[in-house]
């Protein structure tokens, strides 16, 4: 049960064995994806044909490495563009929301709080189609009324950004609120007492305190946007973000160039994940 309660050895080993098995289950898919990035075969499957770096650097058909695959590289750029804007928007709005929910009182606050949590329990596909339907409704309305064709309200990157923003903002709001809740308001009062203006107190005391949460929320937002599939799938136009491009390739069956790309993604997102854990860790603990 817990270390202070004596248990038979057999039972302890059984438990440890189960945990080991679990972590094998957890790591197996990631390991095979990485390993097959180096397989000198046209398909990411057995048998093992020997090691190669062609899926990273190759430039002769069919051995086109990830660094020479312009289609995939382009989609990485599209994803980065989307993720950048989603991060900026969702962290900004999330910060406003955190202050609103943690610091002020206004009628309907509870209702708005519940609604702002709801994107977490709305399936991503549905969020996608509802935004698709609504933006189309507005675009059609505007076109009929004054004859303007609002191109950005048709499936495309703008809608992808908006769609991802719609639910990622909930997450940034929660992360930043949690940190703001821990803030001791008397610190701000002390700053005011020492002659700071409200604005100065905010910028010199409160925002620096929030910084770990802001950075953490930013990293989370960037990664979630970069990896989002469900909402993006319903809103995407001609420019495919990475997940959509990879999905299409997967369906068609692809060379291990996808493994190489996946390995790079794992390294980058794993690194960012660790970074966010360290940034958000309180120095005391």
């Amino acid at each position, binding site marked *: 049960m817990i270390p202070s309660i004596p248990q038979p050895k057999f039972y302890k080993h059984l438990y440890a064995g189960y945990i080991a098995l679990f972590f094998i289950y957890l790591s197996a898919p*990631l390991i095979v994806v990485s390993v097959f990035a180096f397989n000198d075969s046209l398909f990411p499957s*057995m048998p093992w044909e020997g090691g190669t770096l062609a899926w990273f650097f190759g430039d002769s058909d069919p051995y086109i490495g990830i660094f020479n695959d312009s289609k995939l590289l382009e989609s990485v750029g599209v994803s980065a563009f989307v993720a950048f804007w989603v991060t900026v928007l969702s962290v900004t709005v999330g910060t406003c929301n955190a202050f*609103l929910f943690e610091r002020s009182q206004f009628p309907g606050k509870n209702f708005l709080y519940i609604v702002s949590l709801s994107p977490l329990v709305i399936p991503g596909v549905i969020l996608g189609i*509802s935004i698709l339907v609504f933006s189309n*409704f507005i675009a059609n309305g505007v076109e009929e009324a004054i004859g303007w064709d609002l191109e950005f309200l048709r499936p495309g990157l703008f809608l992808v950004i908006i769609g991802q923003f719609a639910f990622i903002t909930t997450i940034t709001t929660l992360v930043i609120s949690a940190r703001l809740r821990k803030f001791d308001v008397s610190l701000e009062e002390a700053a005011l007492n020492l002659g700071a203006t409200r604005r100065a107190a905010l910028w010199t005391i409160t925002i620096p305190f929030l910084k770990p949460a802001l950075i953490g929320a930013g990293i989370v937002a960037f990664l979630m946007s970069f990896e989002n599939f469900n909402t993006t799938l319903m809103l995407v136009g001609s420019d495919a973000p990475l997940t959509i491009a990879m999905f299409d390739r997967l369906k068609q069956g692809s060379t291990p160039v996808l493994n190489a790309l996946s390995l790079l993604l794992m390294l980058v997102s794993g690194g960012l994940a660790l970074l966010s854990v360290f940034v958000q860790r309180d120095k005391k603990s």
Partner: protein
Amino acid sequence: MSNSAAVKSGGFRLGLLLLALPLLLWLFLLVILPHIDLLLVSLRERISYGKYEFSLINYVEFFTEPLYWNTYVRTAVMSIFATVLTLIIGFPVSYYIAKVIRGKGKNALFLMCLIPFWVSELVRTFGWMILLRESGVISNLLQWIGVADGPVEMLYNDAAIMVGLVYTSMLFMVVPLVSVLDSLDDSLIEAGYDLGGNAFTITRDIVVPHAMPGIASGCIVVFMLTLGNYLTPNLLGGKDSLWFTEQIYTQFITRFNWESGSAFGFLLLVLSSVIVWVGLKLSKQTLSQTVG
């Protein structure tokens, strides 16, 4: 005095409104109005180009066409099953991390649980495809140790979908469980033992009741994510995966029948909300406690 106070409160009001503006825009333009519109679109029928009429035909179609209806029920049942399976597999692991292992190993193990989920779902699913396919790692392994005579196809069936769904959901079960079990005071377990309990009765009477909020929030999130999943059933289940989100996709993108697609979307939303609501009621939790 009262005048300046009024001015001050007026300024305060304006500041509050400015602060609230992004929130209101976000919630109304991106959450509330789109879903109302989704409902309205699902309640109309296209008569001719640009002409619509109020109609329940989309819902009638859903209930009369067995394929849609079956897919809907199948998705719900499989999702519940995946949720329960995730709980059963994840609970002992969470307990081990929270209560059994101490010191540095604990943080390391917890981090090891998290890292796979920072990797895109697409990559994870891709990994399972490599493992499970006919020419994949497990099939070859089975042949090598002599259990199977020829290649074994383990992809494109319900078990494969289940493996992938449980895998993808694990994080959302383990994180709330670890945090709720961490907050269980060791002395409660010791007191249970001291008073004559054993591993089974203490788990039943003390550990599980204490973990209930975590179990509820884990199950709700996992269920919701599973229900709305598209990638995993599509890639691991192949053509016969019959997941309801695929029906929505087909209606919207392939058939361009937005009215019917909206009705399906709305039905999925209702299903998800109802089961989440029932889960919250049964476990006496609120939404803010669960996700907040």
